[in-house]
């Protein structure tokens, strides 16, 4: 279980790295999306893997923290997901704006010499 999750995070992150090293703006935006999945998952699993233990303290009486998944990493990731959306929107606008201004979709705003 742990190994499978770790490998999946690695693959997502690796695909993201490959893409953000590419020269086209669209490749970079997809790379950032993939990287953000990987990083969100990474932060999330720092609270360890729990199944059927959602942090909802519905049972009567004082809750026992050991019975629930870690709410802290979840709250952090929830924030990260929403902010990730905002940065993606900003990047997208920069991307189409730069394309309109420079006439190219190369990340440097000009085709490289190579």
């Amino acid at each position: 279980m742990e190994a499978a999750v770790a490998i999946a995070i690695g693959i997502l992150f690796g695909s993201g790295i490959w893409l953000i090293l590419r020269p086209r703006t669209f490749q970079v935006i997809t790379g950032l999306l993939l990287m953000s999945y990987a990083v969100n998952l990474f932060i999330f699993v720092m609270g360890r893997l729990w199944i059927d233990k959602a942090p909802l303290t519905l049972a009567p009486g004082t809750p026992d923290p050991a019975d629930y998944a870690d709410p802290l990493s979840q709250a952090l990731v929830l924030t990260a997901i929403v902010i990730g959306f905002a940065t993606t929107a900003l990047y997208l606008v920069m991307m189409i704006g730069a394309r309109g201004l420079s006439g190219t979709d190369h990340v440097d705003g000009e085709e490289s010499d190579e």
Partner: protein
Amino acid sequence: MLLPSLLLIPFIGSVIAAVMPENARNREAWLAGSVSLAGLIGAGSLYPRISAGEVLRYELPWMPAYGLDFVLRIDGLAWIFAMLVLGIGLLVVLYARYYMSPEDPVPRFFSFLLAFMGSMLGVVLSGNLVQLVVFWELTSITSFLLIGYWHHRADARRGARMAFTVTATGGLCLLAGVIILGHIAGSYDLDAVIAAGDAIRAHELYLPALVLVALGALTKSAQFPFHFWLPHAMAAPTPVSSYLHSATMVKAGVFLLMRLWPALSGTPEWTWIVAGAGVCTLLLGSFAAIFQHDLKGLLAYSTISHLGLITVLLGIGTPLAMVAAIFHTINHATFKASLFMAAGIIDHETGTRDLRVLRGLHRQMPITATLAIVASAAMAGVPLLNGFLSKEMFFAETLQVGSSRNWWMSAAAVAMGIFSVTYSLRFINIFFGTPKVALPKTPHEPPRWMRFPVELLVLACLVVGVLPGLSVGPALHAAVGSVLGPRTPAYDLAVWHGLNVPLLMSFIALIGGALFYLTLRRRFDPDLRDNVPLIYRFSGAQAYENVMIALSQAANFLLRLFGTRRLQPQMLWMMLALLLVPVLVGLSPSAQLAAPLAAPFANLDPLFALLLTVGCVCALAAAWQAKYHRLVALALVGGTGIVTAVVFLWLSAPDLALTQLMVETVTTVLILLGLRWLPPRIAPKELAIDVPRSVWLHRSRDLLVAVAGGGALAALTYAILVRPAPEDSISGFFVLRALAEGGGSNVVNVLLVDFRGFDTMGEITVLAAVALTVYALLRRFRPAHESLAPPSQQTNDVDPAAAQTPAEQAGSGYLMVPGVYLRLLLPFMLLIAAYFFMRGHNLPGGGFVAGLIFAVAIIVQYMLAGTVWVESHLRLRPHRWLGFGLVTAAATGVGAWLFGHPFLTSHTVHLHLPILGELHVPSAFVFDLGVFVVVVGSTMLILTAIAHQSIRGHRQPGKGAEATARGVL
């Protein structure tokens, strides 16, 4: 309350002055004058308590844990300086009213001048050393702005930069010195530092602290070797030179030395550093002053030498020298300010400041001439004027230095006296003789009120010179007492002390100076020399420029060496640096290497494994296709996103799953809207182009980095996951208190809107800012040439739907069926949003999720019937949603203040409603409502801003001109 308002009024006045109209010279002058006058009256009213030896304090806790409080403190010394700042400020304002020409933008001038006045008062009234440094730097900034007031002139810009660089660098040194002092004394409070004088002098860090503080003071007071900035600062308007660069700001350095005198002085190091710099300065300044051609340049060097004189007195370190230093500070401020004003009048009325051209002015401007002559006599130290008294005290003190055989200090003092008589003679020479060259303007007396400040100051010189004990005696006594305390010596301010050595020295200086001047006129006429003899090679300004050039060259070199403007190398280096992190973590001694699980894939559900496999395959395929098949890549990325959401759900995070799912939807729609503006890209294989070998090389390298990076993160994750979670995590705290204290059983939601409410507040602010930025950026959006034409799908001749508008398609065209049921669905989707919002505190849901659902419900309508139709039927104003949401959230937070709790403290109310029964409504619920509204507003704003680009009429280059041409024909 008087002290803080004394400090605050100039700053308020500065803001008001800044917003007045361009040509409001009179109103500006009245404003600035009233501000100074009010301050003067306020400070003056404190005199009875100050002269009784009282120290008034005002304290405002700021960061008490770090010993940083906002402390204002006024004693005799601070009072004298405050009176100088306000009194000369008032006269300068009056003078500036006539000096500034109608073309000058006066709001800027008076605004900066008042801001300087406030900063300078801050320096003299600060009771906390760190706070003092803050005001100190503020005076540097306002001085920079005022020197550069005529910013179209290159010399003004250069002078401003030079003054700022030197004094602000000194200020940084001072900050470091002050921090050391605070460290030694255990407090930044001025009184505590002064009281710890013995401990400071005995401490091993005494010398570094002294050097750093001295660097601050010497740069500010233009002392050797940092004196060079002051002559260049003369590019400022003359009122500024008179106020900042002779009477007040340059005195900040000596003020600081006086302030810290009880804590730092009395050691050989102090005498060597302070008196050494002072002696060099006074000789250099007075000698260089003789050979200036510019009226203001002469006065600037004279100011340098007089500041040197005060510095020497402080360096000598005897109590009597301190008396002389404070006394000379007051005297110098009066006669030098009046001389600068007189110089400004001459410049104003004749059109030149050149000492070689100006002659015989006493005929056209007799009153100004008389005033200037009296003031320069005070500068030269002629008896019955104030300069004579303090200079005589200076001579007396130099005699005390060292043993009776050590006479070098006295010799230096006499030499300086001779030089100052010489340059004073050179100055008053402009009033006599006959002009050889015609002046640019015919001189005449200035307006009555322009001369008034000079008259007042010269009168002060006379009164102090004749009746010192009666005029400044008591105030001086209070100032001296506040510095020296019980060590205050007995002194006598009388004009006549009988025949003694200092009097003899004064007469040697007067007669010697006159003879030296005559000799110079005969042998080396200063009018004919282009530079200062003997010392012109040691140009501080040149050294400064060389240092600046070397610095910028070094910066350029480093930039060329390590910088690139290309993104890809930057990313590559960043990723390589990132790769180091797991390596460092693994190598750190505290890390025990992972004990690999016996069966790493134990208890792995096959369905979960399949899910992960799908996600990974989607990611890899997206990476493969992102260049030439954007739509495919986007769909694949979406697949990975949905898998991520399901993984969240699987691993007990329903809130994350919901949010991820909604964000995924919105992001995909967003990028789909953007795709239209990207250029077409066709794979080289289809065009039969060979990809060059170097590109393959790059790709292999990047692939290697990607594999290594992915592998490293996987290894790191695995290594962490096989270890037990830390015992002392704070997560348990939240689980235990969510229901008990937050009033909700959904711990994640309670964490977001209650425990970490401030964080969420920041987050929605960021969200709103991003939405507005997107909107603003797109207002100026210009698409590329090729993207302007409508896409081929919309110009298809075969498909009749292409001719219809989206609204027609949804209303009666091929989208009629989805049109009917999607419109029917809208209220239900909104209801679902409300449902998820309401239950958020106890079950998965909440403001973020509900806001996204709401936004998606609207977006569906846009996708169905097009922007035009939706916006003609439904007026959503996303900007207002943003505003209302932020205000709601902030008001909830502020509401807690009303009950005396900190910002965003949550409170639960139990309501009994007739039908619904008992309801408990936490205030976090209202906060969450704000979150909901902001999320809806920003999502809608971003999406509609991009969507509107497709229907906006973009001007096509060429077309407009063509159409006009046709219209004409």
